[in-house]
């Protein structure tokens, strides 16, 4: 139980710092910390395969991609110098409205969830899902989606290479 709160707190705090940091490299590293906490939550939810895949794919591949792009572009800090010291809700115009909308969304969702039918305590469950059962389901029930995903990745690869090439 306490592990849930620890991982949850780390995930929330790291995500808040991601959107509050000025330096993009720190944002990427904090997001990796948040993904690590989420991976711990998946282990608590008896999904070890998803937890490890989260580290391999998200924290180990996608974030490396982000880090490379930030380093290669030498991404500057944001230019909103005059608003640097103020909290998001107190900045001018669209930012204040955007921050307010996000807080409103959070409050509404939490209200909706706490007024719900009481979705109940998680029962003892069937034990950690074995990779074999995931594989079996992927290749039988979801076989079409699986194959389409491979085409999606191919398209993304070709698209990324073409888009990032220096035009001739």
């Amino acid at each position, binding site marked *: 139980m306490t592990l849930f709160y620890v991982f949850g707190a780390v995930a929330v705090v790291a*995500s808040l710092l991601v959107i509050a940091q000025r330096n993009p490299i720190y944002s990427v590293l904090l997001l990796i910390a948040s993904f690590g906490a989420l991976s711990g939550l998946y282990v608590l939810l008896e999904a070890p395969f998803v937890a490890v895949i989260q580290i391999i794919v998200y924290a180990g591949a996608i974030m490396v991609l982000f880090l490379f792009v930030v380093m290669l572009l030498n991404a500057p800090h944001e230019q909103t110098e005059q608003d640097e010291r103020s909290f998001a809700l107190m900045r001018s115009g669209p930012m204040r409205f955007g921050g307010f909308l996000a807080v409103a969304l959070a409050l509404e969702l*939490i209200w909706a969830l706490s007024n*719900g039918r009481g979705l109940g305590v998680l029962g003892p469950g069937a034990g950690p899902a074995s990779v074999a059962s995931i594989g079996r389901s992927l290749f039988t029930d979801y076989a079409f989606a699986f194959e389409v995903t491979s085409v999606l990745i191919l398209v993304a690869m070709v698209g990324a290479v073409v888009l990032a090439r220096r035009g001739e």
Partner: protein
Amino acid sequence: MMPSLNEYLMLSAVLFAIGTAGVFVRRNLITILLSIEIMLNAVNLTFVAFGRALGSVDGQIIVFFVMTVAAAEAAVGLAIVISLYRHRESLNPDSFTSLKW
């Protein structure tokens, strides 16, 4: 005492709201993409929590597909960011206001 499904869903809602705040508030293309990743992760957590509550493995399979889509989207999104930066030397979305390239 195990945390109930409600608590997982609330955590996921908070993370989703944080991601949304990031997309609205930040003025840096890369941070906006990072906030989108936060939102996708919040959704992943919801799926896994429901999969666990309903006792089926389908939640984890959907997460598998969401991760794949997120990877593809991050790759293409970053390629677009790179080509935009090459053109306008800025990562602020406000500087891409005119339709003329």
